[in-house]
């Protein structure tokens, strides 16, 4: 199993391409928008050149006329005044449905209640590469704001024309255009009535500055919260179609095992059961999940297995199988100066190796899909962070054009980077095609723990030199397999060599919240702490001495202040730790207090303070929620989560064997928001997780004198 899905979004051909005609009053090409959505006003928001390639994964074709061609999102104001927004981004618990609603409400000057977001439906929404990398806030949010701002200006134009007046005296507010002098007002719905007006815009319309926001910047409650607390919200695994069958897939007994012989005759003889044996795929569809499971047990297979690596030898395996030659240079180009000279100039030198285990995302909703074929066209409802990517997977699997595939992505039971692939969708679609009826296929928890993909394990070797006064003179950092996210040091070090080394992964691996930034911050911030202690310096002062970046300094100081950094320990087993960093445009500093029980040696995280700077804050309460959640999720990987595997088997593929953070693990979490209204907003779902593990490790050292360099650090308590 070496399939690597990390950071490998599929490249798509151009779609929704507009003819390079005059930019206004265009037709939406293949789609007759107004026929589908009704009359009114449509604003299509175009990606600018450059951003288009980056965000859509599409390479521009030929012409270099400098005109934007790619639609990022569109917005429709119906004749009833309802506002519908179409975006390929999806809601996976990170609150994008609400934060994007706020963006449109802000610029359009309407109540969030009149806005409906259509998200991640590949027939209705513009192409989007996927919801990952904390990109929704820095890219989709401003694009929707531009579209809404353009719509507002268009409505003002229409009102000015209706009243035969100067548009400059008109204002838009609360869903209507007003003339303060004459005290006239006209509702958007009246202006949209009878219209079929389409406009494409790029980055021209000015956006409201954060200091003037009235909807953004406010803690707007989750727009669909009521549906969730009443159990009404339909998740992907809740989709039910008429005449729907339930599917199950026959899984190999171990990774790498292949069938030598398969006998499906008994299963096929069961009334109502469809059996599919196609290449490596063996599955059944039956009227109920129980019937499908029973049918599966009637399939006789002889397997041939091949030896597979085990977690006991994991780190040797990763080092041994690294690609030969020098590693890839860090993309931020931090290989500077001469590490050898820097080490020579140092008063103290330190070498240490850090490791991180494979861990599972374990989203509470396992992968699920419902697939339906109608006349050669395939419709799939599934939980994924990449609906368009899944559409591509389906088109490829069934050798049909992508416009014969529609993927719906109902807001799902989370992903954390773990649902980029369309495995369940492909399986459901294969069975549905054979059965001639819709098929639902939902993975069990064991399947999710075994056949999804994992956060990469890794080995990180750090070698450093410092002067007696605390100046770092040399920094060498080699990461094997975890990845290069967050690999660069934010500290000012004249001599650095930072490399990522690709290697063979014994397990299928892929994205995880914050990617490798968690591993790289753990190694870096643990090592920084080791250096500070070697010099008998305060770990915070040591960091600040080597740090110029004002935003990172600010979060360090804010977290330390709130935490009361520097106070004396008052309890036995108590320890304090600090760590911080920069990733995906966000700056984070985390302070942790731990308590290590002197007899059981169990670690309890008592209190965490996180200071976070992600530019101008869009929704303070939901941002706090994300930061709290990132810290809680981080506790698992920091202290006890690890996938154990042996010769092709996952040994702990259940919640009874794989410990995730529970109520009793959750510390008091306090959040300090920097809210830089002068800076653009960036994403916040990922970066806050990176400070937790090193802050906790450093606190454990403070409490016990034990330096723990392997994640998870204390699955069975801190050893003496």
């Amino acid at each position, binding site marked *: 199993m070496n399939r690597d899905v990390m950071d490998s979004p599929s490249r798509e051909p151009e779609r929704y391409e507009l003819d390079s005609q005059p930019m206004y009053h265009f037709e939406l090409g293949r789609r007759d928008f107004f026929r589908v959505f009704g009359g009114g006003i449509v604003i299509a928001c175009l990606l600018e050149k450059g951003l288009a390639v980056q965000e859509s994964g599409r390479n521009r074709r030929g012409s270099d006329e400098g005109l934007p061609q790619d639609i990022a999102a569109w917005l429709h104001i119906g004749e009833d005044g309802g506002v519908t927004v179409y975006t390929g981004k999806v809601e996976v618990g990170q609150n994008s449905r609400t934060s994007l609603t706020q963006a449109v409400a802000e610029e359009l000057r309407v109540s969030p209640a009149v806005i409906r977001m259509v998200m991640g439906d590949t027939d209705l929404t513009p192409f989007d590469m996927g919801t990952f990398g904390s990109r929704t806030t820095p890219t989709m949010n401003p694009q929707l704001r531009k579209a809404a701002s353009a719509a507002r200006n268009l409505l003002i134009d229409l009102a000015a024309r209706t009243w035969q007046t100067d548009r400059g005296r008109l204002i838009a507010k609360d869903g209507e255009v007003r003339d303060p002098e004459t005290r006239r007002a006209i509702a958007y719905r009246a202006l949209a009535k009878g219209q079929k007006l389409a406009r494409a815009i790029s980055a021209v319309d000015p956006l409201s500055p954060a200091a003037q926001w009235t909807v953004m910047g406010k803690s707007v409650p989750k727009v669909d919260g009521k549906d969730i607390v*009443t*159990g009404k919200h339909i998740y992907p695994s*809740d989709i039910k179609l008429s005449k729907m069958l339930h599917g199950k897939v026959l899984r190999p007994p171990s990774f790498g095992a292949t069938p030598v012989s398969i006998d499906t005759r008994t299963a096929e003889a069961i009334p109502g059961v469809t059996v599919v044996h196609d290449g490596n795929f063996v599955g059944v569809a039956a009227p109920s999940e129980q019937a499908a499971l029973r049918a599966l047990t009637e399939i006789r297979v002889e397997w041939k297995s091949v030896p597979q690596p085990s977690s006991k030898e994991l780190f040797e395996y990763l080092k041994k199988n690294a690609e030969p030659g020098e590693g890839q240079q860090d993309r931020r180009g931090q290989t500077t100066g001469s590490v050898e000279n820097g080490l020579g100039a140092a008063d103290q030198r330190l070498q240490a190796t850090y490791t991180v285990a494979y861990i599972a995302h374990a989203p509470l909703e396992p992968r699920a899909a419902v697939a339906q074929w109608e006349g050669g066209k395939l419709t799939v409802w599934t939980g994924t962070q990449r609906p368009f990517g899944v559409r591509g997977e389906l088109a490829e699997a069934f050798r049909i054009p992508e416009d014969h595939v529609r993927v719906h992505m109902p807001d799902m039971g*989370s992903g954390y980077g773990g649902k980029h692939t369309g495995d369940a969708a492909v399986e459901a679609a294969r069975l549905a095609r054979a059965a001639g009826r819709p098929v639902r296929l939902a993975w069990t*928890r064991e399947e999710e723990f075994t056949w999804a993909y994992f956060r990469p394990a890794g080995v990180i070797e750090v070698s450093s030199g410092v002067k007696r006064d605390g100046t770092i003179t040399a920094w060498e950092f080699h990461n094997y397999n975890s990845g290069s996210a967050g690999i660069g040091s934010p500290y000012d070090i004249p001599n650095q060599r930072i490399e990522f080394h690709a290697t063979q992964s014994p397990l299928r691996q892929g994205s995880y919240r914050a990617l490798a930034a968690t591993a790289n911050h753990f190694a870096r911030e643990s090592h920084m702490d080791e250096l500070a202690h070697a010099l008998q310096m305060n770990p915070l002062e040591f960091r600040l001495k080597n740090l110029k970046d004002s935003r990172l300094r600010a979060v360090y100081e804010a977290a330390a202040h709130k935490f009361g950094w520097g106070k004396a320990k008052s309890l036995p087993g108590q320890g304090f730790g600090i760590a911080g960093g920069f990733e995906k445009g966000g700056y984070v500093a985390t302070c942790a207090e731990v308590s290590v029980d002197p007899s059981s040696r169990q670690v309890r995280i008592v209190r965490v303070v996180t200071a976070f700077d992600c530019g101008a804050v869009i929704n303070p309460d939901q941002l706090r929620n994300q930061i*709290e*959640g990132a810290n809680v999720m981080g506790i698992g990987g920091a202290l006890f989560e690890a996938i154990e595997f042996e010769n092709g088997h996952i040994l702990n593929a259940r919640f009874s064997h794989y410990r995730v953070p529970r*109520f*009793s693990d959750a510390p008091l979490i306090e959040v300090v928001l920097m809210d830089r209204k002068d800076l653009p907003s960036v994403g916040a779902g990922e970066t806050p997780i990176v400070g937790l593990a090193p802050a906790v490790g450093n606190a454990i050292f403070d409490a016990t004198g034990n330096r723990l360099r392997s994640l998870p650090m204390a699955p069975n308590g801190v050893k003496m």
Partner: protein
Amino acid sequence: MSNVTSLSVNGMRYPIDVDPEISLLAVLRDHLGLTGSKYGCGEGQCGACTVLIDGYPRRSCITKVGTIAAKQVTTIEGLHKDGRLHPVQQAFLEIGALQCGYCTSGMIVTASALLKSNLDPGEQDIVRFMEGNICRCGTYQRIIAAIRMAARMMKEVPS
């Protein structure tokens, strides 16, 4: 054992015809269309499938429907009455005690059972009672706050 032919859920009697060995969760979701109760683990470890059986919180994924056929089942869909949210539901909204919401039904049903027996739970009481429910998004601190808020609401306006 003969098939189970009726089930009382949320005060309604549903005619069904199912194998007594299958899980209550499968019956609720696949036969009655009550999808508010979720599958999360199938081994009673995560709490996403929690329902009340005669008022007590139970894991419907490991409860065979044959064992509870004569009892009263309450699911998340049965907690709000006449369009009025249960105080726990109200408090979850006010505190913002959810992210993806997949665990929320089980959390709310479990918490409603706690507050039925204890209207003044301390933090440790809540942690102990809720320990079997997993929120992977990590909103535990908020859920605790929401349960305490709901307790206050219920004390002020006894239902």
